[in-house]
């Protein structure tokens, strides 16, 4: 998992590449490097944030350059393993995102031929392979080199021998070309160059591109030129900047009323009523849901929603498991924010290979997942920079509610008036989230109470079980506090042994059929002297007798309420992390979208 960028044009490549790397830092940030051509190839690398690199790179006025921000997969975090990597003569520089599976074998072969390696990375073999194949045409050399590679890659190459072109190639790792005027860009992700252009061309697996200042050509693996349509990206730069908020995460938490409105835009009508996700859904009885991380929790929530509202039995699988195990039948629905999550892409391909119909719920139009899957539902959350998923999770859950409603109405499982009530409550959702956001101070107070606890548990029943898991994940990933989510009924089957007066339990309480049982669970926890913080419906009067601290959420139908509840837990995680002084937007050891398996 890494971020790469290349620039060729009339501006100062040093500045463009460094700026682009900062926008890509969310993809990984243990070390970074840059290569520039100015009467020869110049190479600079540093460990740590892009800032460290920026301080080391002298003002070279070059018009072509490539850069890389690394998240180590092969070889330790140090200067020599940082990209770009070069060939023996130091004339060809390459940056790479992905994993070369057969690099050991290739390296041995190249070493026998006399190539000298200076790093422990899989990437360096590509540089030497290109050198081995180079006879004056860098594109041909790359084309022949990548034929030997097994694994996944997005690579960008420059050479001082041909100082006017950048060569790119991709297979199973993201790479997108930005089309400017008298300048062009290539990068792992659009925000890297969005300041300069919103016109892009996406590359397909197995393609190679040749990017010059005035020209972009794309070729297939055999060297035949292919034509590719230009697309306009509708994100504005503003959407990719912090705008006054201290962290991207907080900005993104506060954006949720807007993102949720965006998810529903044009897809629901209260008066008629209707729900239409616009992908021509048929009658579905069974679904396999595959996802990783936060998206997996959204899929678990999706299971409760689809089963209850639309009567669809769901089987939820982790992508990393499903690609090797599990039933390949029927319809497979994948959930991936970036559309580039390697394990989920593999699971989708696997499902497709066995003839399954595939649907993807994703936030990124044109991403790899949308090109693999038969049907795409966009969550429309807008770009998310903070590593901890916030608005992308809540819009995924909302998308599941829309999906369930559309199918529930189609299957006539929902009456007209039930459907209308649901849709009316969805229209209230952005305001309900806003109301919860206004509780910032109350939640900050709670965070102060909890900041010194070493371990915090989250419990819930029904859809609030995956919400508890997500709440725990948010807390642990950004505050580094040990946090676990449990189905409330499962506590007594083991985790009870961990409860002490120093392990607060955050209990999500719904006013539905689980209410009484949940109060019972809280009673059991209180009996072990653990402090209980309840996240409860504003109309829940009984809870006051049971909990030590209560945060209220606006009364909404159970599935819809799970969204403001999640927002409360996001704010809690944020404030605990802030009080502990954690680097909230860039937690240690984590990267935004995991494009390695």
């Amino acid at each position, binding site marked *: 998992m890494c971020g790469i960028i290349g620039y060729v044009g009339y501006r100062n490549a040093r500045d463009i590449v460094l700026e682009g790397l900062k926008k890509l830092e969310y993809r990984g940030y243990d070390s970074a490097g840059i290569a520039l051509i100015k009467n020869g190839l110049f190479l600079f690398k540093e460990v740590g944030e892009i800032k460290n690199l920026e301080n080391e790179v002298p003002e070279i006025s070059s018009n072509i350059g490539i850069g890389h921000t690394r998240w180590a997969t092969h070889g330790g975090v140090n200067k020599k393993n940082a990209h770009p990597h070069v060939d023996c003569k130091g004339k060809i520089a390459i940056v790479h995102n992905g994993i070369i599976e057969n690099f050991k074998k290739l390296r041995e072969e190249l070493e026998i031929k006399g190539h000298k390696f200076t790093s422990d990375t899989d990437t360096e073999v590509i540089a030497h392979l290109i050198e081995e194949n180079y006879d004056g045409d860098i594109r041909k050399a790359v084309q022949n080199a990548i034929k030997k590679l097994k694994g996944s890659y997005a690579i960008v190459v420059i050479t001082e021998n041909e100082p006017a072109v950048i060569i790119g190639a991709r297979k199973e790792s993201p790479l997108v070309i930005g089309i400017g005027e008298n300048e062009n860009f290539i990068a792992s992700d659009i925000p890297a160059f969005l300041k300069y252009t919103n016109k892009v061309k996406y590359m397909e697996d197995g393609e190679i591109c040749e990017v010059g200042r005035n020209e972009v050509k794309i070729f297939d693996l055999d060297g035949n030129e292919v034509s590719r349509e230009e697309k306009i990206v509708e994100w504005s730069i503003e959407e990719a900047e912090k705008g006054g908020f201290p962290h991207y995460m907080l900005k993104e938490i506060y954006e949720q009323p807007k993102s949720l409105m965006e998810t529903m835009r044009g897809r629901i009508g209260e008066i008629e009523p209707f729900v239409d996700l616009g992908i021509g859904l048929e009658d579905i009885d069974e679904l396999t849901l595959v996802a990783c991380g936060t998206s997996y929790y959204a899929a678990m929530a999706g299971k409760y929603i689809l089963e209850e509202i639309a009567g669809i039995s769901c089987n939820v699988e982790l992508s990393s498991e499903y690609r090797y195990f599990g039933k390949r039948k029927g319809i497979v629905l994948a959930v991936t924010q970036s559309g580039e999550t390697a394990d989920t892409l593999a699971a989708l391909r696997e499902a497709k290979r066995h003839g399954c119909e595939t649907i993807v719920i994703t936030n990124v139009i044109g991403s790899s997942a949308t090109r693999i899957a038969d049907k795409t539902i966009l969550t429309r959350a807008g770009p998310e920079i903070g590593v901890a998923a916030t608005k992308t999770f809540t819009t995924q859950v909302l998308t599941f509610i829309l999906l369930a409603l559309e199918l529930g109405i189609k299957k006539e499982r929902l009456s007209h008036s039930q459907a209308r009530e649901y849709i009316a409550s969805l229209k209230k959702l952005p305001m309900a989230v806003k109301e919860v956001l*206004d509780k910032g101070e109350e939640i900050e107070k709670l965070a102060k109470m909890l900041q010194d606890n070493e371990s915090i548990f989250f419990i819930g029943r029904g859809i609030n079980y995956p919400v508890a898991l997500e709440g725990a994940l948010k807390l642990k990933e950004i505050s580094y506090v040990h946090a676990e989510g449990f189905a409330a009924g499962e506590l007594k089957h083991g985790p009870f042994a961990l409860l002490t007066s120093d392990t607060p339990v955050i209990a999500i309480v719904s006013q539905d059929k689980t209410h009484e049982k949940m109060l019972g669970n809280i009673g059991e926890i209180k009996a072990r002297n653990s402090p209980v913080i309840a996240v409860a419906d504003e109309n829940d009067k009984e809870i006051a007798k049971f909990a030590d601290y209560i945060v209220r959420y606006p009364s909404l139908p159970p599935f819809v309420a799970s969204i403001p509840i999640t927002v409360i837990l996001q704010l809690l995680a944020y404030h605990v992390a802030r009080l502990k002084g954690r680097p909230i937007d860039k937690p240690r050891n984590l990267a935004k979208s995991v494009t390695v398996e």
Partner: protein
Amino acid sequence: MVGEAVILAAGEGSRLRPFTEDIPKVMLPVANKPILEYVINAIRDSGIRKIIMIVGYKKESVMDYFGSGSRCGVEIEYVTQEKQLGTGHALFQARELVKGEEFIVLPGDNIIDKDVILKLMNSPTPALVVEESDIPSKYGVVEIDGDIIKNLIEKPPVARTNIVSTGIYKFDKRVFELLDELLKEGRTSLIDAILQFVQEGILYGVKGNGKWRDAVYPWDLLKMNEESLNKVPATISGKIEENVIIKGKVSIGENTIVHSGSYLVGPITIGEGCEIGPHACIFPSTSIGNNVTIYPFSEIRDSLIMDNSTIGSFSYISKSVIGRGTKISDHFSTLVRDSIIEIEGEIKKVKGAGAFIGGECNIESGVVIKGGAIIGKRAHISSNKVLSGRIENDSKVV
């Protein structure tokens, strides 16, 4: 050359409650844009691209909407005034961020014309924009001799002239030194610094062009809305079904559905993602926000309906402001009449007032609201009630 503007956007605007319960006054929508957006656009059109925004009360709503400023083509830096201690204290927060020698200062809640800003930019420093007002005693009343302001009295019981301060200034960095001294004495209002300039006889008065607008009370929003609507270009997006009549300047946002038989007469603006009709009538000087649902057979005129609200069928709404996320059931009506309204101890006469209903209210079927009534945020009104006067936030009327 003036290249920076400081906007004071930290205050609540308490006389506009209940509408400022969840958003600051600067973010109240007028013709579907926050008041602050008009201010920023005027600044931009006068050539200033760098804005230092002092935020405080509900600052996230300002930051979330404007972000780094690219929506309006400006660069915005935010400074938080933690406690709303006064305008002098607010401006003082910007001292580290102002880079140029001279800059302008504006309240974020008054609509202003770009020509006046240009005039101010080219005047000597310090300077204050003044305007004529029908209600001068609501403002700082100014006595002016030639171009120099001779006297300024804040909200006098009896005004000696009808010239008032707009709170729009041009300063140089000396104002920060003055404020520093005043703040040490516990004087937090910007007026104290201004009076110092008046005393020294160096404060220039720049006459405005009559396009300055302030909303002090809820009904002022309707006037501001009416005037701003005339400037909204007619653009129709969304889905307009057959047999919808559209006349005059009508703007309809994306993903809005207007169902058959509806009758729309401009100037009106309707936001994104709304559902209107069938057979709904919307008449001039009405703004309808985003995600608003208007059920069949309802009539709305001269009103401001904010985001996410719902109007039930067979309703009549006129001269009214409806807050965000309020749900109004069927057979609702507003009785427009001349009213006497008390706000923060002041008695105000209002001609032709409808209802002023805060956000997130739930109003059941058949409710009638008499003109001039102010209904607090999140009030719950049971069916068939006839209400007037003031209903507090979170009330339940049964």
